[in-house]
């Protein structure tokens, strides 16, 4: 029987995928602004928010069913660290951004795959009940 808890894990994965998509946009903006004087790189904060929402002593199933997904949104923050040697005040390092882009892409693929596997498991239950 389907109940409202059947899609809990999928909802969490969807939220993470949305954060990954937004991070891709932010990295693309960092790369586009690599030559803009005074530009500071931006990034997304999401994993720490999700982790703090999933704390608890219960089993993972209970914690996932209790999490309030509408309260967790990926946040854009500006990274003001000035560790670069550039004179125009821009702290974007194009190699770091390209590496982050690849890592984020792989993460998004993995999330999409996990969501597909979850759906396939639910479909398998249907097929075995005929």
């Amino acid at each position: 029987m389907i109940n409202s808890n059947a899609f809990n894990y999928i909802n969490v994965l969807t939220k993470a995928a949305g954060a990954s998509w937004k991070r891709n946009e932010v990295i693309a903006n960092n790369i586009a602004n690599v030559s803009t004087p005074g530009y500071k790189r931006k990034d997304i904060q999401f994993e720490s928010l999700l982790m703090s929402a999933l704390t608890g002593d219960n089993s993972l199933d209970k914690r996932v069913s209790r999490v309030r997904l509408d309260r967790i949104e990926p946040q854009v923050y500006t990274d003001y660290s000035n560790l670069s040697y550039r004179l125009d005040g821009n702290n974007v390092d194009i190699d770091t951004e390209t590496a982050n882009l690849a890592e984020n892409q792989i993460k998004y693929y993995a999330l999409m795959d996990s969501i597909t596997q979850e759906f396939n498991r639910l479909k398998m239950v249907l097929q075995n009940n005929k």
Partner: protein
Amino acid sequence: MAAFSGMNISASGMSAQRLRMDVISQNIANVRTTRDKNGQPYKRKAVVFSERTTSPFQEIFMKTAGVPGNGVKVTRIVEDSETPMNKVYDPNHPDADEEGYVSYPNVNIVQEMTDLIDATRSYEANVTAFNATKSMALKGLEVGK
């Protein structure tokens, strides 16, 4: 936020870097131009980048709230008046001034080539970002299949 704004952002980066490459090419082509259409020696040009915004409200919004941003655009192409012109003593040149010095453009070929390589690298990084966005979108379409 428009649909697929990640692609628009990368496209704006590509356009901006391409414009920068065009300006650098013009500098290199005019490295020995002592007289342009105004009769003055050619002055080195440079581009000025800034973050692209759609409205003044969005500028302030971007500073306070966290918005991914909208890409980059070239706001203006300026002439470089700080680097001094290249003066060469040649009294027989038709463009020599009263003291016999000819003003050659203040274009440094080595610096222009370095800029060109940097612009090419930035352009390629933007292309990589665009391809990443496209691949991710196509992968998202295959969920559940």
